[in-house]
């Protein structure tokens, strides 16, 4: 298109061309450094920190769950122990109560027996007294009828009492 185009030789040395090329390489280095490496490095660092965080979170969660498990196991164990203790104390108490009840019942029964004995002896005494009275009355009557005269009741009672007492001994 252009009439006379000038060209360079195949091999030539031009100091400004060298400088331009050198500067081009420097510029490209700076471009790559600031537009490629810096963001990529920053991103990789962020990713690394994120991964680290995820790992530490997982680690923490694991430790937490482990401690929770331990806690629950402890709690379960303590509950178990408590239940055992409750049952044993309850049994103890029940046994004690049983003993008490049995003892009470025994005492009561003994008391009742004693009371009954006492009552029996009293009744017996009373009956004996009554019989004694009856016997004296009857014997007075019989004696009146036999003797035919009235004996002084008072003397008579005295006499019979002494008589019965003699017999009783």
């Amino acid at each position: 298109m252009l009439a006379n185009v000038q060209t360079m030789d195949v091999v030539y040395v031009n100091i400004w061309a060298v400088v331009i090329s050198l500067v081009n390489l420097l510029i490209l280095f700076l471009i790559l450094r600031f537009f490629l490496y810096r963001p990529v490095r920053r991103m990789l660092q962020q990713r690394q920190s994120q991964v680290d965080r995820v790992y530490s979170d997982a680690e923490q969660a694991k430790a937490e769950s482990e401690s929770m498990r331990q806690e629950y196991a402890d709690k379960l164990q303590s509950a178990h122990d408590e239940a055992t203790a409750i049952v044993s104390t309850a049994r103890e108490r029940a046994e004690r109560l049983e003993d008490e009840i049995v003892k009470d019942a025994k005492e009561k029964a003994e008391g009742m027996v004693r009371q009954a004995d006492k009552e029996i002896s009293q009744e017996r005494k009373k009956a004996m007294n009554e019989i004694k009275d009856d016997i004296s009355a009857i014997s007075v009557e019989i004696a009146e009828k036999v003797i035919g005269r009235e004996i002084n009741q008072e003397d008579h009672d005295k006499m019979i009492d002494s008589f019965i007492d003699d017999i009783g001994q």
Partner: protein
Amino acid sequence: MTATKKSLKFILLDILYLAMIILPFAGAIVLKVLITPQTEGVSLTGAIILWQIPMPLQDLYITEVQINSWAVVIAILGLVLFLRHGLSVKPYLKRQLVLEWIVEQCDNLVMSNMGQAFMGFSPFICAIMALSAFSSLSSLLGIFPPTSDLNIIAGWAILVFILITYFKLKGGFFHYLKSYTEPIAVMTPMNIISEFATPVSMTMRHFGNVLSGVVISSLLGVFLSSLTAGLPGLLGQIPFLRVGIPAVLSLYFDIFSGCLQAFIFAMLTMQYVANGFPGEAYEKRLKRRAERAARRAAEKA
């Protein structure tokens, strides 16, 4: 993965970034088509001069090479911005995986060749590889590849040489001078030559590989044209052998060799810088400096 719906702003930015990748190359191709003269046969020439700017020492020529290398830089910037777009801690875009893979690979390369202390070199190595590979690959689009210009690669090699010397000087200036007399003092001139041979050899290796590809492709084109030129009639007019066969060579010279040279250049950079760095002397120097500072602080107190 694609559960999050892309917003309109996101799509527009994507389009902008893609345009940043495509438009520079499209512009370079248009420029190439507009300025390339119609020539008969195959000729081997350098880049076409667009402007000539007078500067001290030497005139500055703005040629295709400069335009194309800027196009490559802008395209790489666009590519980076595109891949980086939507970067998040939880990747939901496939491009983020590509981006992470690139960074990881560069980091691994630097880590295994230079060690932990040189991790800051990772973007530089990535830049060298990207610039060299994309420059070589740009010839696939039909534009003049910047890597087939000696000055471009010389610029990179000189930057690498500056880095090598900077890291060598970290062991102290005296240590740096002494390193020239090792293993024996007689070797000094040789050592000086080999020191300056480093950037030259790096330049020539890369440039020679790309240039040889260009030369061989041109020669093959001429050769294939001449094969069919003897045929009678219309057959002789159309160099039909030039269809297809050069593509196979291009596969090697443009794609394989281009990527390989980028990798070799990066590897050499890492090796030279890491080997040139006098670790022990640097540590000794740091220790001495710390001791001196401590002594000065003690004197003050």
